[in-house]
Every structure is written in C-alpha cells, then in structure tokens.
C-alpha cells in the first residue's frame, strides 16, 4: 500500500540543502500498521511529511496503492491518504466549529449526504451531537484529537498517517485515543504509518517498526523482536534501554 524507494528529502536547495532524510526505503502492506521511531531530529517526521505530500522529496519514489506520487497530487490522490497531527490545539481551525471542520472535506470531494456522514463520523469517534457546533477552544485536548480523527476519516481514506497522535495528551487520554485508533483500523481496514518517540505507544499499535537515526533508517524489525530484545542495530538497543530505564524509574 505504501512503498518508499530510496527517498531523500532536503531542506533548502542546491549545495546548501540539508538532507533531513536520506535513502529511505520501506514497504507497508495493506492493513498493516508500521511505526517509525527515533529521537527528535532523526528525520522520522520528515519521512511522514514526504509520504503525506506536504514536503517534496528530492530523490526516490513514493508509491501509494501502486501509484508513484507526482510532485503535485490530484484530488483523488489526496483522498487516498489523511493525517492526524501531533498538536490537537494547532490542527483545528480556531474559528471554525466542529461542523465546519467536517463539512469542508465533504465539499472539496463533492461527497453527498453530508448531514448523515457528519453525524456518523462524530458517533464513530465517540463524540455526540452536543459537540457538533462547538469551537475547538470549547473542547478538551482528547476531544479535539477525536475531531481531528473524524475529519481525517470522513473522506474514507485507505491510509492514515499519525504524527505522534498522543504525545500532547494526558496519559489517561492517550490510552483512549490509541484504543479508538485500533478499533477504527479494524473497522475500516486502514493502513497506518505512525511516527512516535515512545516505544510503548509504538508497541501498543504497530506490528513492524523502523528505527531512524540522523536521517537514515538504520533497522527494520518487528514489535515481537523488540519485546524479545533480539534487535541488531546498536541505536535500537539504546532506545530500548532508555525506554526500559524510563519505565523502571516511573
């Protein structure tokens, strides 16, 4: 469903450009959940944005559903993929109600039965009709993230990208959002690519994991291998150890 072949993303142009991600190749099968871990600055969010089409990639191929993505994507290509952002406070327009946020993608893609779809997608993410005409500042962080998920899924994409979807939320809310994502993935057969620095979150949701360091994908492994500790690359072991130390100290 998602295939990256030797993708390089540069910030800036020409000789002064900095390669934030170099030679990234991986494949995610339909219905699979793939996690990208790494420390901040490792380039994992850059890869996610290149897949989303928010950043142009300088070299390589980004292929979605068997189709290589051009520099400017068509509306149909856009609809294939949606994204949930890290900061639920920044990803919703501050002066648009939940209703307006959900109606906009329907209008863009010319989808009918807006009333039914909006009510249904709110119900699906665990929000009620009382939330429909609220502004983002009248909602809690967890509720906002639910709205962001509803907005992503209302166009029925096949791929969902998650950029640290729980790191801005309280611990108790994190679990709710993760469970919601797991349920939606089952019900819609979504393919998901998630970026996180939190191995526990990745282990909760993903089957396979890619480890990034300094803009390179240093290891691809499974969550089972992470749990068993049978990983090959030194940086993966470092991440595992620091995560375990953090859990113990907590």
């Amino acid at each position, binding site marked *: 469903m998602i295939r990256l072949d030797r993708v390089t993303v540069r910030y800036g142009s020409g000789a002064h450009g900095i390669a934030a991600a170099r030679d990234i190749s991986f494949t995610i099968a339909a219905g699979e959940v793939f996690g990208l871990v790494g420390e901040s600055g490792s380039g994992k969010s850059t890869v996610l944005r290149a897949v*989303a*089409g*928010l950043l142009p990639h300088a070299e390589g191929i980004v292929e979605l559903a068997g189709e290589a993505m051009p520099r400017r*994507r068509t*509306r149909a290509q*856009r*609809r294939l*993929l*949606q*994204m949930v*952002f*890290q*900061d639920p406070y*920044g*990803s*919703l*327009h*501050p*002066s*648009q*109600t939940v*209703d307006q946020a959900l109606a*906009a*993608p329907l209008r*863009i*893609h010319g989808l009918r039965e807006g009333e039914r779809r909006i009510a249904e997608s709110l119900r699906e993410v665990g929000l009620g*009709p*009382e939330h*429909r*005409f609220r*502004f983002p*500042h009248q909602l809690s962080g967890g509720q906002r993230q639910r709205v*962001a998920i509803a*907005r992503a899924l209302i*166009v029925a994409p096949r791929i969902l990208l998650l950029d640290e979807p729980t790191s801005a939320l309280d611990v108790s809310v994190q679990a709710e959002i993760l469970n919601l994502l797991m349920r939606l993935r089952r019900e819609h057969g979504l393919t998901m690519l998630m970026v996180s620095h939190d191995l526990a979150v990745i282990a909760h949701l993903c089957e396979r994991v890619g480890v990034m360091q300094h803009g390179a994908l240093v290891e691809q492994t499974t969550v089972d291998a992470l749990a068993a500790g049978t990983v090959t690359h030194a940086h993966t072991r470092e991440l595992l150890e620091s995560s375990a130390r953090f859990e113990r100290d907590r």
Partner: protein
Amino acid sequence: MSGAGLRAWLLDPVPASRRQARIGRWYRAALAFGGNGLAMAGLLIVLALVLIAIAAPLIADPQAATLQSLTDRLQPASWAHPFGTDELGRDIFARTVFGARITLTIVALVGLIVVPVGLGIGLPAGYFGGAVDAVLMRLTDIFLAFPRLVLALAFAAALGPGIVNAVVAIALTTWPPYARLARAETMTRRDAEFVQAAVLQGASRASILFRQILPLCLPSVVIRLTLDMAGIIITAAGLGFLGLGAQPPAPEWGAMVASGRQVLLDQWWVATIPGIAIFITSVGFNLFGDGLRDVADARGA
C-alpha cells in the same frame, strides 16, 4: 415563541441545526458586546450618526443648509437657528446635520476601498512569500514612506478637488498599514497544522487563503479600520479645511471649521459646532472599535 423560550433557543448548548448554531453565536457575541458600557456608547453614537444622515431632511430643512441670507450672517444661537449662522447667513444646525451624510459617505467609501486592497496585497504576500512578497511589500513601503496628509494632499491636488477624489486620496494613503497587518497575520498562520490538514484534504490555494486564513485576518483588519475611522474623518476634514475636499457650498465639517477660522474669537460657534461633530464622531468610532476588539479577544482566548 415566548421571550424565555426564544432565549433558551438562542443559548441552546446543543443546537439542532446549523442556522440555530450560527444565530446563537451571534446572540452570544451581541450579549458580550452589550455588557461593555463604553462599547455600547460608541455603537449608539455611530447608530445615531447613521440615523441622522438618513433622516436629515426630516430633522432640518434641506434648503437651509445652503440658503444664503447676508442679513442674518454670524447670528448667535436662537430659536430660528439653534446653532447660529455662518459668515454667509446659512443655518449651522442644518449644515451640521447634512454634513453627517458627507462624512459617513467618505468613511464608508474609504473602508470599502482600504480593506479589500489591504487584504488583496497582504494575504498573497504573506502566504506565497519569496518574490511575490518582495514586490508587494516594496510597493507598500513606497506608499508608507510618505507622510499621510501630504500624500493625500498631492493626490487631491492632482486629481482635482471634490469628495470622490478626496476619498481616493485618503484610501491610497491608508491601505499600506492594512497590507502589512494582513501579511503578518497570514505569515503566523500559513504553516499552521490546520492549513496542512486542508492541503491534505485537497483544498486549493485560493480556498485555503479565503476559507482558512482570511477569516482569521479579517477581525483584526476590521477592528483596525474602526479605530482608524477617527483618523480618516480628521484627514477628510483636513482636506476640506485646505479646500481640497468637498467643494462649497457642500456642508462638509472640515470646510465648515475652516470657514469659521477668521471669526473664531468673536463668533466661536461657526468653527466650534462642526468641530464638536467631528470630535463626537471620532470618539464614537474609537469606542466602537475598542468594544469589537474586546469581543473578538474574548472569543479567541
């Protein structure tokens, strides 16, 4: 529907329809505005001014505003002439009432030109950046570099005196700060995640500019305009005072102040009455703008 029922419908936390939600939002904003005493005073002044301008022929005799009567010149206030008469024997009360029409016309026309021009220059400059930004902002800088009244004077002198030309001259010198404001507001939003989300939904650039960014820039631009109204009125009066605005015998407040200048010490009312009208109008718009800003801030917080 009873009063209490209507109120409950307006403040319903779970509106049944988009229409009800929208009307309820306006009602809440109106409640917030109504709770602000100074803002309401400003609104009342502005409303009163609009009413006076519309109903001018009912309040004062249209002919009295321009009717000269040299035997009655420079009369103090009396029952026949509540505000006295000017140096040509015209009724100052009628002239002040009809002057409201000219002032409001100028203010409205300037607003109608300045807001679209400012947004039209500032939004693309802030959103696209690069060469577009450089060209548009240097243009803005050129206009900003001139002192406002002097540039308006030059335009009015070049275009010839008259109300329409005065409006054009004032608008040409007023838009640059609006463009800068719109550009700054746009730049803080163009990389926001809600804009990226709109890109991912397949929204076009035009739709992102108009539906996502414009609504966030509009309040500060409109509020700036209401705060600037006082300055616009005074610039218009200044042009009138210098003889480059409305032409005699039109009862423009600035021109009226100018004509009373020679007799200020002995017949003070000739210049003072239109001066007070300019002052009250400026204060009204200022208070109204302040109130609008408070309402907008409360919603953004």
